[in-house]
């Protein structure tokens, strides 16, 4: 984008709270069940039945409110948002209108590599219930309705229009997702829809006070899609303005395949949802003690953890960022560090091998079935020269696959390094005999010839030689 304009972005994020049961009934919230098997008269909106609020959803929402530094409403009040849609069996959604549970919070994102940061205001976070899903088949003259999702608790988190670039929007989402994952209040799985995001974007000439016409972008199925769609949109809007035309306030859909936004509908007068207080749910007071109890159960959040890791473990910012990116990884690091007592080495292992396995299997530490004790053992074996780094990687792979003890794997595979001078003696002699050219090179000052020779020793011993020891012995023999 040119420097003439600036971009104004606001994000609306819907997060499904990971409560076991729905917001107003006892149905399971589990994803992926057969259609319409997780329903009851309450979430089906049958006549005469009444909602009963799941206090766990309240607890989860309060956790996020605390994490985002929000003010918390003293009274929890629900409202009805009235609109007709077949995936909403009551034709109203229980939501919160004028008294969102949490308001006036902020999310801090890093501005650039220098570590400077910027705060994005969080206008509000409110509780509501999710709708069901319509399943369309273009060949059929009707649609199917799956109401399993109906009534799942949602937290809608609305940012101030303070985000200034698509990259910053991406960072905002990353930080928000990280916090939510740390709080363990949502799966944050965009593919399963447990985290959804709509973006509002407008541009204006730099220095202008008035906001430009707002365009809402929907169908954003990943953080990357959010960034790409916003990048596309700011350029599109600039072109419209440069052509002397007016940007119309509308809703646009992101087409991931074509990398464009497409106009979906013009935003005429705002939809009238006829909000009014939900008479079936009695407002209840938020007690200060209750909030304090929840506050006491809060985990250390990413921002605090980053600071602590930097000072406590003396690690560089980049390393810490990777370790803290997920709570399970940070926890794994700390467990391993406790055993091996070498922070940088533990960090390298986790950043490297462990992350590789996590990515390959696209899972978390739990799903990887990685016992921190085993990882510590492997690292220690490398450190004390029992096995080579190369073997260690294989031990880890086998360990993840079988769950076997690393000691047993090393034994079974014969990975134990030869660290005995006597045992290595003949191999070293052989290598020197066979590679006179390299020996001479080394003697003539080509120091990297030693590496080649060590490699030959490794080959000779089928990888079992302790390379450090082999190097020392070679040097002594040659010089």
């Amino acid at each position: 984008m040119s420097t003439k304009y600036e971009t104004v972005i606001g994000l609306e994020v819907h997060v499904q709270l990971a409560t076991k049961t729905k917001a107003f009934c006892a149905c399971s919230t589990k994803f992926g069940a057969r259609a319409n098997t997780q329903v009851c008269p309450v979430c089906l909106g049958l006549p005469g039945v009444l909602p009963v609020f799941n206090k766990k959803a309240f607890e989860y929402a309060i956790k996020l409110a605390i994490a985002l530094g929000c003010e918390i409403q003293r009274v929890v009040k629900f409202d009805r948002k009235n609109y007709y849609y077949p995936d909403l069996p009551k034709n109203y959604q229980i939501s919160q209108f004028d008294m969102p549970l949490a308001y006036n919070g902020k999310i801090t994102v890093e501005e650039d590599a220098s570590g400077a940061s910027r705060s994005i205001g969080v206008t509000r976070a409110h509780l509501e219930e999710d709708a069901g899903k319509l399943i369309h088949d273009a060949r059929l003259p009707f649609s199917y309705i799956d109401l399993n999702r109906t009534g799942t608790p949602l937290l809608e988190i609305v940012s101030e229009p303070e985000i200034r670039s698509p990259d910053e929007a991406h960072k905002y989402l990353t930080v928000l997702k990280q916090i939510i994952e740390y709080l363990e209040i949502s799966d944050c799985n965009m593919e399963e829809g447990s985290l959804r995001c709509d973006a509002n974007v407008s541009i204006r000439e730099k220095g202008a006070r008035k906001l430009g016409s707002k365009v809402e972008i929907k169908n954003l199925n990943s953080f990357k899609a959010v960034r790409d769609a916003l990048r596309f949109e700011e350029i599109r809007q600039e072109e419209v303005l440069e052509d002397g035309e007016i940007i119309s306030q509308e809703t646009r859909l992101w087409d991931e395949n074509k990398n464009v936004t497409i106009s979906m509908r013009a935003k005429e007068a705002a939809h009238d949802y006829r909000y009014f207080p939900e008479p079936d749910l009695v407002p209840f007071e938020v007690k200060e003690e209750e909030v304090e109890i929840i506050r006491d159960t809060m985990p250390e959040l990413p921002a605090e953890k980053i600071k602590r890791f930097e000072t406590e473990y003396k690690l560089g910012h980049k390393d810490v960022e990777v370790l803290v990116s997920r709570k399970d990884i940070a926890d794994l690091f700390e467990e391993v560090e406790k055993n091996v007592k070498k922070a940088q080495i533990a960090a390298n292992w986790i950043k490297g091998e462990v992350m590789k396995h996590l990515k390959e299997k696209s899972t978390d530490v739990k799903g990887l079935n990685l016992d921190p004790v085993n990882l510590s053992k492997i690292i220690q074996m490398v450190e004390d020269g029992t096995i080579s780094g190369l073997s260690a990687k294989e031990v880890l792979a086998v360990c993840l696959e079988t769950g076997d003890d690393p000691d047993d794997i090393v034994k079974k595979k014969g990975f134990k390094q030869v660290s005995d001078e006597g045992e290595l003696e003949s191999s070293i002699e052989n290598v020197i005999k066979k590679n006179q050219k390299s020996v001479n090179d080394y003697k003539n000052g080509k120091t990297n010839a030693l590496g080649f020779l060590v490699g030959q020793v490794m080959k000779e011993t089928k990888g079992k030689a302790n390379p450090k020891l082999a190097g020392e012995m070679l040097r002594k023999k040659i010089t």
Partner: protein
Amino acid sequence: MDNIFFSIDTYRKWLEQADKPLKDTVSFLIERLLSIDKSINAFSEVEGEAIVARASVLGKGAKGRALFGVPIATKGNICLKDALTTCSSRILEGFRPPYSATVTEKLMAEGALIFNGANMDEFAFGSSCEGSCTGPTKNPWDRTRIPGGSSGGATAAVAAGEVAAALGSDTGGSIRQPAAMCGVVGFKPTYGRVSRYGLIAFASSLDQIGPITNNVADCAAMLEVIAGYDEKDSTSVNAEVPRYTDSLNQDIKGMKIGIPKEYFIDGINDDVRNCISDAIKVFKKLGAETVDISLPHTKYAVSCYYIIGPAEASSNLARYDGVHYGHRDRNARDLIEMYIGSRNEGFGAEAKRRILLGTYALSSGYYEAFYLKAQKVRTKIADDFKEAFKVCDCILTPTTPTTAFKIGERVEDPLAMYLSDIFTISANLAGLPAVSVPCGFGKGNLPVGLQLMAKPFEEEVLIKSAHAFEQNTEHHKVRACDL
């Protein structure tokens, strides 16, 4: 026909003496009801086989229970598992809920025989029972007149001796007004005293289920069974339920009865006025004192009610759209047509009127002027009562301004119809308990009712005063079914 339902006690003695298998009794009761109901139309459909089937599973232990074998009518908006529950509306044609209302469960646990689906004004919108999609119920005292509404079917069934007692729902007088017009006792408990779970909502913040009975003792017994906290209804109040039958015979000497001047207006007909003055004399004779009180915001009650009630109703009734259950327009070609067609065919005139009224009152730009203002007025009305109850224990008023009117008389005049609830609406807006008790007869031998209102959760005050009055008058002994 013998009046076996003079009281629940009389009936239970009769049942004991008859000493027949319950199955035979049930069949007899169904036959008896159907024969009486030919001229009343309190029920549009009686599912006899289901009633027999439910009786057969009552179990041996049920025999000693408070309502064993007692036939009780329930209004058509109170859910009964697998039974037709239609709110007398075409839009719910064929609807059988897979659950029972908490009150129904409680009655059945006490051994009651449920005669469900009593006729009503569609979705309880009305004061005459003419708004039913299956035709009006007739007043047992004069079959050319309305029984009152909206619980007209349930009330007429009790008055005509079809059942021993009934459950109705009261949003603005729908239990008390027909009770007065049919000469029986009708009780609206404090908001939150009785679970609303399984009551198909009209206006959630006003609706309350209550008993309709031949006398105050039956009423106390019924209330005792249905009252209490229900975890399925967040608006039900978690407070201990007293034994209401224990308060029946408590003395009312020295009790202060408030007489609000705003309830003795020009519109009251003379029959009603005279009966109420006589009733006041009875209370005085019993040692109660009367206190003149004022409830200054009474004049706003009807308008306030006709904003809040329809507003909530417009949202509560939004779910009847032909998509998931109930009536669907089969000719619709797309979703919008299906919504419009189903609702247009499914709802009657009054339902449409109230949905439109409520939608309007909640619309942006009108919300503050209507809904919000009505909520403020509602608070003022409740405050009036709080103030009044500083100087009195209960408040006595007529239940209705007139006796039962002719069928068809007010159908074309909704405003006149709305005014028949003018004295009963305030108790709903303020959430107070209130009872209507027979207090005499006007021209044409038409019953007149008096209303007593008390502080929230002081149902006992109403029971003892209503009982004292009843025991010292003869009105309740005269029954329509004896005519």
